[in-house]
C-alpha cells in the first residue's frame, strides 16, 4: 500500500460519504415540516423561540435533551405542568422553589407577560414534535414516582381498575409530576394523601361551586374541570382563580382512563 493508494482511498471515501450525507439531509429536510406539525408554528411560537434564545435558557436547561445539565429538561413541561402554573412560575420562580429546600433556584429573569406567553407557546409546540419516542418515560422536574417496579407503580393491563389507574397516574398521564401521594409533600399541586376524605369535606365547603355529590364524582370533576374548586392552603391557582392543573384531560384521556384514575385515587384513603 502506497501513499497514493491511501490518498485515493481518502478522497473517494470522503466524497461518497459526503454525498450520502447530503442526500439524507435533503430527504430529512423535506420531512421536518410534517414531523414537527409546522402548520402550528405560529408567530407566537416563533417569538417564543427568540425568547428561549435571548435568555440563554439552554445553557441551564435541556430541551429535546440538548443543552446544559444544570436545570430540568423542558421538552414536555407544558404538557406536564400546564400554562397557568408556568406563567406564575416564570414571573417569580422563588414563589415555588427555594435554594434551601430544593438545592437550586431559577433566577428571576424579568420576563414580560408577552414573553412568558410566547415562550410557553414555543415549549408547547416543541413538546409535540415527533421525537422517535424520546423520552421513553416522562422526565420529571421534581417529585418522586417509583415507576420501575410494577407492584409499586401499577400495571397497565391489569384487571383491577385501580392498578391500571395507578399505572396511568405514574406513567403516561404524568399526574405524579405534580402530585405526591406522601402526606404534606407539595410538588406543584396538593398532596393526594388522604384525598378521599378531603374530597368528602370539599363538596360541603361553602366555596365549592361544582356539581359532585360523592367523593368519586368530585375526583372525576377535579380531573376534567380542575378550576371547579381551588384548594386554599397553598398557591395552586392564578390570581384569576384558574387552577394550575391543565384543563386538557377531557381531550387527552379516554373516559375509561378517567374512571381508572378515579378508581386508583379512591384507594388513597
Amino acid at each position, binding site marked *: 500500500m502506497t501513499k497514493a493508494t491511501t490518498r485515493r482511498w481518502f478522497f473517494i471515501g470522503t466524497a461518497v460519504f459526503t454525498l450520502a450525507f447530503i442526500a439524507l439531509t435533503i430527504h430529512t429536510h423535506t420531512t421536518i415540516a410534517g414531523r414537527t406539525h409546522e402548520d402550528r408554528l405560529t408567530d407566537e411560537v416563533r417569538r417564543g423561540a427568540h425568547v428561549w434564545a435571548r435568555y440563554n435558557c*439552554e445553557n441551564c436547561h435541556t430541551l429535546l435533551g440538548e443543552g446544559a445539565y*444544570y436545570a*430540568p429538561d423542558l421538552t414536555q413541561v407544558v404538557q406536564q405542568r400546564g400554562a397557568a402554573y408556568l406563567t406564575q412560575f416564570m414571573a417569580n420562580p422563588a414563589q415555588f422553589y427555594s435554594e434551601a429546600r430544593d438545592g437550586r433556584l431559577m433566577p428571576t429573569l424579568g420576563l414580560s407577560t408577552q414573553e412568558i406567553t410566547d415562550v410557553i407557546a414555543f415549549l408547547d409546540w416543541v413538546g409535540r414534535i415527533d421525537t422517535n419516542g424520546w423520552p421513553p418515560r416522562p422526565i420529571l422536574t421534581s417529585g418522586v414516582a417509583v415507576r420501575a417496579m410494577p407492584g409499586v407503580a401499577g400495571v397497565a393491563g391489569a384487571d383491577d381498575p385501580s392498578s391500571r389507574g395507578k399505572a396511568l397516574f405514574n406513567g403516561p398521564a404524568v399526574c405524579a409530576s405534580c402530585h405526591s401521594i406522601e402526606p404534606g409533600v407539595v410538588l406543584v399541586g396538593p398532596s393526594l394523601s388522604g384525598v378521599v376524605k378531603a374530597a368528602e369535606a370539599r363538596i360541603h365547603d361553602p366555596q365549592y361551586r361544582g356539581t359532585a355529590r360523592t367523593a368519586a364524582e368530585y375526583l372525576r370533576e377535579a380531573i376534567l374541570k380542575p378550576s371547579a374548586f381551588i384548594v386554599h392552603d397553598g398557591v395552586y391557582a392564578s390570581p384569576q382563580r384558574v387552577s394550575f392543573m391543565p384543563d386538557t384531560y377531557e381531550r387527552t384521556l379516554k373516559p375509561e382512563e378517567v374512571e381508572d384514575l378515579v378508581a386508583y385515587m379512591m384507594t388513597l384513603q
Partner: protein
Amino acid sequence: MTYQSQRIAYAYFLASVLLFGLQVAFGFVSLAKYLGPDPLLNVLNFATSKAIHTNLLLVWVLTGFMGAAYYMVPEESRVEIYSVRLAYVQLALWLAIGVIAVVGYLFGVTAGRKFLEMPQPLKYGVVVVMVMFLVNILLTIRKAGRWTTTQGVLIGGLASAALLFVSGMIPFDNYTLDRFYRWWVVHLWVEGVWELILGAMLAFLLIRLSGADREVMEKWLYVIVGLTFLSGILGTGHHYYWIGVPQYWLWIGGVFSALEPLAFLAMTAYAYNLMRRSGLAHPNTLALHWTIGSAVMSMLGAGLLGLAHTWPQVNRWTHGTHITTMHGHMAFFGAYAMINLAMITYALPAFAGVPDESRDTRLGLWAFWLMVGGMFGMTMALAAAGITQTYLERIMGFGYLETQQKIQVHYLMWLATSIVFAAGVIAFIWDFAKAGLPRATVVKA
C-alpha cells in the same frame, strides 16, 4: 526554530495559554453553582458562566490551532510567512471579538445557541478573521511552491472548519431544523474536520520527535483522516435521534458513530508504534509526554467514552444527563487541549533559543501529570454522577431536583479532582512564563 516568522506562533500560544487559564476559572464558577446556594444567582447565573467556560474553550483551542499553523507551515513549506503583520492584525481582531463576546455575555447579550452564543455581527467578524488567516497561509504556501500532505491536511481541516461555521449562521424558524444544522458546526467540527487538524499536528510532531520517514507517516495520516470521515460524517446522526428527524437516523447514526473510535484507535496505534521504534529518544521529553498523552487520552475520552452512549438503545436513557458531561470533558481535553499543549511544549525551547537537553522539565512534568490525573478523576466523578442520574431520574423516575440532591457527593469529587487539574494548569502557565519571551535570532533546528 528555523524561520523568523515562526515567532508569530508565540503570540498565539501566549494568548491560548492565558485563555485556557481563564476557561478553567469560569469552570470553577460554574461548578460552585452545582454545590450549593448561589450568591450570584441574579448577577452572573449559571447559563452565563457556563457559556463563557465553553466559549473560552473554543477560542483558546482555535487560537492554538492557528498558532500551530503559523509554526508548522514555514517548516513544511521552507519559507517565511507571507505577511507577519497580517498575522498579528488577525490575532488582535480575533481577541477583540472574543473580549466583546464575553463582555456581551456578562450583560446578557447572547444568541443563546450552545457553543454558538456569539451574536451574529461578531460571527461575521470571525469569518473575516478566518479569511485573513487562510489567505495568509495559502499565499505563504504558494510563495514557496512546496506543499506537503501534513500541512495539506492541516489547512484542509482549518478551511473546512471555517466553511462549516457559516452553516451555523443561517437562521431557522423551525427548532428541529435549527438543531439539525447547528450540529453541522458542532459535530462536524469536533468529530470531523478538527480531527484533521489533530491528525496533522500529531503527524508533524511524530515525524520530528521520532525521526520517522515522512512518506510512511503521511500514508497512514490519509488512513486516519479517511477513517474519520468514513465514520464521522454519517455519525452526525447520533445527535439527530430525538430532535424530530426520520427514524432511519437511529441506525445510520448508531452504526457510523460506533465506528468513530477507529480513527482515534488508529492515531494511538500510530503514535505507539513510532515511539516504540524510535525508543522515545527525543530530548524534548515534555513534548513527547503531551503528544503520546494526547493520542491515548483522545482515544479514551472521545473514542471509548463516546462509544459508551452512542447506541440509540443506550442513548435514549442517557441523553441529556451528566454522561455527556463526562465524555465531553475528557474528549475535548484529550483530543484538542493536549495536542495544543504538545505543540506549545515542542515549540517553546526553540522560541527561547534553549537546546531541548538543557531545559528543566520538572515543573512541566508536574503540569502534565496533575492535568492528566485531575482530568481522569473528573471524568470518573462525572461518570458516577451520570450513571446515578440516569438510573434514578430516567429509570426509577425520581424528579430532576431530587436526583441532583442525591448526587451531590459526586460533585464534591468533581471539585476535588478539578483542583488537581487546575494546579496542573497553573504549573503549565508558570512553566510557559519561565521560558521567557522568544529571542530575535534565528536558531537553526
